[in-house]
């Protein structure tokens, strides 16, 4: 980690941490690029990315390793921090590898949530169903 006296160092890697509540997927791993879905849009984080804080929204996180392979994870929500020293912390409430999700179950959940939406008037419950719809839509889109 370089001190603040070297603002434009050439970084080859991001030191990446992908943490969810129950599991640590990556911890201080050196990766080339990470694609994250945030509330303001999806963007890719490369080494020497401008420091930023973002809030995640349900979607797919793609991690491009050093050797060129990529792994995908589905995250429910959380936050991502890019620091000045090119370390990235992705704190997700829940994160699962993409291939452990079932497309049929996701589609069924999505239809159920959409039909529930019509019958609810309470604000808080409506928000809950909308969140469920958004998450299921994202899962379906990711798996197709």
């Amino acid at each position, binding site marked *: 980690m370089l001190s603040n006296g070297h603002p434009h160092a050439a970084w080859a890697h991001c030191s990446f*941490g992908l*943490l*969810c*509540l*129950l*599991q*640590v997927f990556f*911890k201080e791993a050196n990766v080339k690029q990470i694609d994250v879905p945030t*509330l*303001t849009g999806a963007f890719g984080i490369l080494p020497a990315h*401008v*420091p*930023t*804080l*973002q*809030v995640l929204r349900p979607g797919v996180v793609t991690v491009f390793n050093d050797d060129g392979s990529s792994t995908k994870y589905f995250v429910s929500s*959380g*936050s991502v*921090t890019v*620091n*000045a*020293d090119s*370390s990235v*912390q992705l*704190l997700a*409430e829940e994160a699962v590898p993409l291939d452990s999700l079932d497309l049929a179950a996701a589609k069924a959940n999505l239809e159920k949530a959409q039909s529930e939406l019509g019958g609810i008037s309470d604000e808080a419950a409506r928000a809950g169903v909308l969140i469920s719809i958004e998450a299921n839509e994202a899962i379906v889109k990711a798996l197709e």
Partner: protein
Amino acid sequence: MFARTSAAVFLPQCGQVRNMATLKDITIRLKSIKNIQKITKSMKMVAAAKYSRAERSLKPARVYGTGTMALYEKAEIKAPEDKNKHLIIGVSSDRGLCGAIHSSVAKAMKREIAKLSGAGKEVMIVNVGDKLRGLLYRTHGKHILINCKEVGRKPPTFMDASVIATELLDSGYEFDQGSIVFNRFRSVISYKTDEKPLFSLDTVASSENMGIYDDIDADVLRNYQEFALVNIIYFGLKESTTSEQSARMTAMDNASKNASEMIDKLTMTFNRTRQAVITKELIEIISGAAAL
């Protein structure tokens, strides 16, 4: 604690001073202590099982917690000294018989309150756990903002942490900075009362190093802060549960050992008393026979 409880149950007399306790008294006492030993042994087993589960889930939670704090450390966010409203979250639980867990958190909180009140700042506290409320409400009742019950029965989840955070944010207390006091787990036999800082939205937004973080609007920052608050509370809860279970295991283990000691001593006394009774009867018979 165990010694005091047993003294309340039994006759408060120590061995040497006792006047010729009858065999009946000693038998009753022996039976009670044996029961208590069984109870403390089983409590130790339960605590050991809960402890191993808690420790296993602590590992990812720890990485998660340090990941959350990483931003604040890397950006070197420090609260300005002149801010007046403070918040202290004390994390403990509802159940006792776990050694000095609750009293150490309460002591740390009392020290902080005294220091901050002495400097003229306003302090409010959040008690997570009924035991803390019991320890603090008499002397620091007017500082208590929120009390949380039903803590410690089941392993803590992210939902619990978010409920606490929601209550705190809804309470309307606009704190400028705060800290969370909890028992950090070090090993099976040791824990340490630790304090982690909490920063309010304004402090983070106006900190000088935040300027280097690009593309942040107030909404995103607020979401981020709330999420970070829940994360820190979750981290504190996890560490605290693990420390509590290990402390309870140790306490119950000591209690069982003490009970075994008492049983040994009492069995000795019982046998000696029994032999004394027999000897007395023999003497009576013999002196009676000699008198004839």
